[in-house]
């Protein structure tokens, strides 16, 4: 299984690190160079972590565990009104970012209230594009147990619920963190920071489960390998949008319109095959983006056997 780590050090002899990552069968997910300093996010086989640790020590760098790197997570609030936003939704999103995830904040159009709270099919489809969802709910136990559970009942990605009252368990979600609720100020006290840690641990747990599931039937190629090839497309390399390529657990999001570049992306070559043959390439609900979901090795084999 791959482990994602962040190398924080200098550019001196950095090529030795890149070579080592390649030798052990790992990938560089992201590089950020600031003058003579560099941060490298990498995915390496878990059992080879000591080798990378030794190299980092040798190069005088810090190695940080970023368990959520290579994932895109949506943090959902019932509305974008000030009753739910920005606290604590932004604090949670920021916390997940510190753990390496790319986060997106979303407010539902009609999520407020009790009986009137609802989620549209479109909103569900948008949430399903991400690797995991965090629903941030309010203070009333009665309301959450009886009504708000509807909001995440048909979501197919792992859901973590964050709410105020202490609830032993909720249906339709993989993890539950209580003790947060509504806030009118930033979460900066010691006990609140502990809660944020609890949220990120819960999300990490759900992502870990999903990673294990994927490892049981591995993807045909790791998303990082496709990232390198996508950078060859001029529109992608020249894109001014923040993070034009976002890694998902089972694929990628490329921030170029599917209608214009879908065919070009499908024609990219990956290990002697066209990307379109080993991945499902679709338009995203977020305008101007393309979603790539990589097929598993079994799926590709099954398709091959049908063809022959």
């Amino acid at each position, binding site marked *: 299984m791959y482990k994602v780590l962040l190398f924080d050090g200098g550019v001196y002899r950095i090529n030795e690190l890149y070579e080592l990552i390649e030798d052990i069968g790992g990938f560089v997910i992201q590089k950020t160079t600031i003058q003579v300093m560099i941060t490298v996010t990498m995915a390496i086989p878990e059992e080879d972590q000591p080798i990378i640790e030794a190299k980092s020590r040798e190069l005088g760098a810090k190695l940080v565990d970023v368990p959520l790197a290579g994932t895109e997570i949506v943090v959902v609030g019932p509305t974008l*009104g000030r*009753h739910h936003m920005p606290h604590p939704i932004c604090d949670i999103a920021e916390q997940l970012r510190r753990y390496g995830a790319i986060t997106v904040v979303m407010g539902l159009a009609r999520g407020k209230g*009790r009986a009137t*709270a609802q989620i549209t099919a479109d909103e569900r489809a948008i949430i399903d594009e991400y690797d995991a969802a965090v629903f941030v709910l309010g203070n*009333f136990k*009665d*309301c959450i147990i009886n009504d708000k559970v509807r909001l995440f009942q048909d979501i197919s990605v792992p859901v973590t619920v964050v709410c105020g*009252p202490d609830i032993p368990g909720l249906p339709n979600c993989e993890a539950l963190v209580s003790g947060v609720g509504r806030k009118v100020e930033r979460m900066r006290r010691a006990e609140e920071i502990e809660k944020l840690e609890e949220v990120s641990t819960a999300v990490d747990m759900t992502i870990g489960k999903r990673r294990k599931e994927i490892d049981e039937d591995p993807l045909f190629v790791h998303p990082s390998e496709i990232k390198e090839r996508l950078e060859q497309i001029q529109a992608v390399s020249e894109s001014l949008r923040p993070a034009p390529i976002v890694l998902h657990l089972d694929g990628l999001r490329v921030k170029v319109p599917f209608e214009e570049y879908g065919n070009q992306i499908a024609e990219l070559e990956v290990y002697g095959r066209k990307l379109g043959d080993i991945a499902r390439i679709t338009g995203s609900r977020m305008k101007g983006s393309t979603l790539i979901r990589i097929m598993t090795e079994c799926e590709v084999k099954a398709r091959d056997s049908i063809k022959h």
Partner: protein
Amino acid sequence: MEIIVEGPESFANESYSLLLERTLVDMGITTSIDKVKMIIRPAEPLFIISIRMRKAGGSRMVSEISTIEEREGGTFISIIDENYAPRLLSLLWRTFGRERIEQITRLEIFAKGMTAGDIESLRLDPEEELKKKLLDAVWRLLPEGFKVRQEEASEIAMTITATERTLTPEQIALGASTQKEMEAL
């Protein structure tokens, strides 16, 4: 300031008490409030908030809080009670327009083209402003989905009864009795 919360859920009660406290501190009106009572019934659903205000000091003439002196080309105002400075400035802006009012220092204002008589007759009404701020705090506090609201207000207390369904006569009566209870304190 005393806050009483009646409701079946202890977490929600404590949390709403804290939310109100923080909101009032943010708006700087904690000292203007005597007592707050909230009745929260999530199962109905019903949210009643009743606030008893302290006397905001009553309405005051501009001449009581400042010295007014007519000079060439306008009137010079020197504020004596600085608590009223921001309110006086915004009242002058509202009444005569920004181009005529010049703030020379923190407590000195020159009103171009105005006579002393024009300014002496103005009144500052702090109660109206306090009520506006209080309403804003209540809108921030009320659960967002509770759009059906009934308000009762008097000189010293205001009560807002809110739900997301149709308000029942019993709920309205409870709101009215809470308002009376707060007025009678």
